[in-house]
C-alpha cells in the first residue's frame, strides 16, 4: 500500500485558536520561570526532604512518553508492520516534541540553569560515575538521533530508515532505563531503591507511549476530518493490554520485595499513609483497573471506549511518576534507631505553588505547540482518501458560508500533490 503524507494547512480557525491558547500559556509559564529564576526555588513546593518537584515529574513523564512512542514508530520502519504506517511519522514527531519538553524540564529544575552546559562536558568536567552525567549522554544523543530519524523518514530512504530505526529503538530503551536508574540506584531513598526500577520505567514508557499514540491518533484524525481505521486502533489496544499486564507484574514485584524485607517502613507508609490514595486510586486505578476493565470487555471494543482506556493510562502514568517523585520521597530517613522527633522526623510537605503549576503548564503547552507546529511544517499526517474528501464535502452540503470555506480549505490540503507539495504558509 502506497501511502502519502501531507501537512495540515494551519489556516483554520480551530488551529489558530489552539496555537494561540498554547502560545499564551507557554508565555505565562516563561514569565513564571523568569520569576523563579530571579527569586529562587522557595517559590516551588520542594524542600530539603522532597528535593524534586513537578518539573522532574514532568521530565520523567515526557521521557517515558517520548521513548515509548519512538519505540512504537520502529514497529513500522524496522519491523515492517505496514498497518501502523499512517501513524509512524506522527509518533516520531511526538517523540521529538516530548524529549524537548523533558530537557526543558530538567533545565527548569536546576537551581543554576546558567551552568546547564556543565552537564554536557562529558569525560572532561563531568563526573562519569553520576547517573546524571551518563543520562546526559543518553538524552542528548537521543535528541539528535530522533531528529535525524525524522529527517531520514521524511526523505524516504528505506535502507537507512531501517538501520537508523534499530539504533533509535536501542537508544530509546537505554534512555528510559537510565532514567529509572536515577531513582533505582539511590540506596538512601528506601522506597526508590530497587533493581527493577529501570525495567519498570521502560515498561511504563512503552505502555504510556502506546496509550498516547491512541489518544493523539484519535484526536488528530477527528480534528482534521480524516477517517480512522478501526483495525489499527484495536490492534494498538491489544498491545496496550499486554504492556499493562507486564507493568502490573513489575509494580507488584517492586512493592512485594520492599514489603518482604524487614526495612519496610517507607514503602508501608507509601502504600497506607496519607498519600496512599494517589497510588491506589490514581496510579493503580487509572493505569491498571479501569483500562483492563474496558479492554477485556468484549462489548466495549469501540473506538470511543478504547480512547477512554488509553486516556486513562496516559493520565495514570503521570500519577505514577508523581507518586514516585513526591510522596515516595517524603518519608523521613531513619538517621538513628527509634522515632525521630520534630521536623527531622516529620513526613515532608509538598505544597502546590502557583508558580510551579504555571511553569508545569507552560512545559505542557510548549510540547503541544511544538507538535502543532510540526504538523503544520512537516508532512506527518497520512493523506486523505477520496472517500474522506467526499464525506467532508457532503458534510458541508448545507451551504453555510464559513463551513463551505473550511471544507474548501481542507479539501485543498488533500488535493495537493503528495510527493512534492510545499506546506502552505
Amino acid at each position, binding site marked *: 500500500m502506497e501511502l502519502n503524507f501531507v501537512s495540515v494547512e494551519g489556516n483554520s480557525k480551530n488551529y489558530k485558536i489552539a496555537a494561540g491558547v498554547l502560545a499564551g500559556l507557554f508565555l505565562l509559564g516563561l514569565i513564571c520561570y523568569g520569576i523563579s529564576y530571579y*527569586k*529562587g*526555588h*522557595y517559590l516551588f513546593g*520542594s*524542600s*530539603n*526532604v522532597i*528535593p*524534586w518537584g513537578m518539573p522532574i515529574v514532568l521530565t520523567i513523564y515526557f521521557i517515558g512518553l517520548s521513548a515509548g512512542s519512538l519505540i512504537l514508530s520502529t514497529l513500522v520502519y524496522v519491523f515492517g508492520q505496514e498497518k501502523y504506517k499512517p501513524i509512524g511519522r506522527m509518533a516520531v514527531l511526538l517523540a521529538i516534541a516530548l524529549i524537548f519538553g523533558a530537557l526543558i524540564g*530538567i533545565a527548569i*529544575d*536546576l*537551581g*543554576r*540553569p546558567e*551552568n*546547564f552546559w*556543565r*552537564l554536557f562536558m562529558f569525560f572532561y*568536567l*563531568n*563526573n562519569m*560515575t*553520576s*547517573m*546524571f*552525567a551518563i543520562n*546526559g549522554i543518553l538524552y542528548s544523543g537521543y535528541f539528535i538521533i530522533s531528529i535525524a530519524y525524522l529527517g531520514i523518514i521524511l526523505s524516504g530512504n528505506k535502507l537507512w530508515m531501517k538501520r537508523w530505526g534499530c539504533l533509535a529503538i536501542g537508544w530509546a530503551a537505554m534512555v528510559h532505563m537510565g532514567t529509572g536508574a*536515577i531513582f533505582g540506584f*539511590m*540506596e*538512601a*531513598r528506601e522506597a526508590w531503591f530497587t533493581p527493577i526500577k529501570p525495567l519498570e520505567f521502560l515498561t511504563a514508557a512503552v505502555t504510556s507511549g502506546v496509550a498516547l499514540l491512541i489518544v493523539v491518533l484519535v484526536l488528530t484524525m477527528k480534528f482534521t476530518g480524516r477517517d480512522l481505521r478501526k483495525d489499527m486502533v484495536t490492534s494498538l489496544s491489544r498491545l496496550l493490554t499486554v504492556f499493562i499486564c507486564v507493568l502490573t507484574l513489575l509494580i507488584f514485584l517492586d512493592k512485594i520485595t520492599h514489603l518482604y524485607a524487614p526495612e519496610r517502613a517507607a514503602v508501608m507508609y507509601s502504600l497506607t499513609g496519607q498519600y496512599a490514595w494517589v497510588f491506589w486510586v490514581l496510579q493503580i486505578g487509572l493505569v491498571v483497573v479501569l483500562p483492563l476493565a474496558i479492554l477485556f470487555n468484549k462489548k466495549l471494543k469501540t473506538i470511543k471506549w478504547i480512547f477512554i482506556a488509553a486516556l486513562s493510562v496516559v493520565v495514570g502514568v503521570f500519577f505514577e511518576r508523581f507518586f514516585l517523585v513526591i510522596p515516595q*520521597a517524603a518519608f523521613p*530517613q*531513619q*538517621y*538513628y*534507631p*527509634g*522515632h*525521630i*522527633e*520534630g*521536623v*527531622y*522526623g516529620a513526613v*515532608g*510537605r509538598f*505544597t502546590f505553588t502557583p508558580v510551579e503549576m504555571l511553569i508545569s503548564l507552560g512545559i505542557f503547552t510548549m510540547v503541544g505547540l511544538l507538535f502543532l507546529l510540526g504538523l503544520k511544517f512537516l508532512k506527518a499526517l497520512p493523506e486523505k482518501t477520496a472517500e474522506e474528501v467526499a464525506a467532508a464535502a457532503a458534510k458541508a452540503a448545507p451551504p453555510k458560508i464559513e463551513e463551505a470555506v473550511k471544507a474548501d480549505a481542507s479539501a485543498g490540503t488533500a488535493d495537493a500533490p503528495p510527493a512534492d507539495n510545499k506546506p502552505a504558509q
Partner: protein
Amino acid sequence: MSRWGMVIDLDKCTGCQECTIACKEENNIPHGSPDEQIKRQDPYWHKVIAASEGEYPTAKTELVPMPCMHCDNPPCAMVCPCKATFKRHDGIVTQNFRRCIGCKYCMVACPYGARAYNYKEQEDLPYNRMDPPLRRDLIGFWPFPHRAHGMVEKCTFCFHRIEKAIMEGKEIGTEVVPACVEACPAHARVFGDLDDPESEVAKLLSNRTSIVLREGMGTRPKVHYLTK
C-alpha cells in the same frame, strides 16, 4: 597524611543546639523564618535530632548532633554530575560552588540529610569572624563570600580554619578546631586526625565503644559517636 574526623560523646551532649548556631554564624548560613523551617526550606549545615524509643514509663530519648559525616565513600560525590562535590586528599568532602548546577541529586543520595539547598537569595552579610583579607592565591576558592540561591551546601568541617592553621603552624585539634567543636559548652565534641594514634580522637575511639550512623549504607563516616 592526616584524615580529619570528629568524635561526639552522646553521654555529654545536652542538646543545647549551640553547635547549630555556631555553625550558622561561622559559615554565614542564611537564616530562615519558622515557617520555612517547618517546610524544611531553611538551610542547616548541622542539626541535632532527638530519637525516642519506647512508651511513657520506659521511654528514652537520645540526642544526636549531626554534622556532615564526611564519608570515606561519599554517595554525594559519587552522584554529583559536575565534580562540584568531591573528597579532598585529607578526607573532607566539600564542594566548589562555581561548579554546582543545583540539580539536587546529592540531596537525594545523602543518607544523612546533611545537605541543604539555598532556596532564596540571601542578604550578603560579612562573615562573623576576624579574618585577614581574602587571598585567593593562598586559600583557593573558599571561603566563598557571596552565595547565590539555587545551590546545594553542606558542612565543610570548617576547613578554612584548618588550612589557616596549617599555614600558621598551629596544632589542629587542640589550638584550632571547627566552630561547632569550639562552641560546645559540654565538651562533647572532639576534632582531630583519625590516623594519628596520639590524637585525642584516636584515643577516645580506642578506649570507648563507638558507633557510626547508618553503617549498613557502606559510607564509612568519619564522624563517630561514643555511646552512653
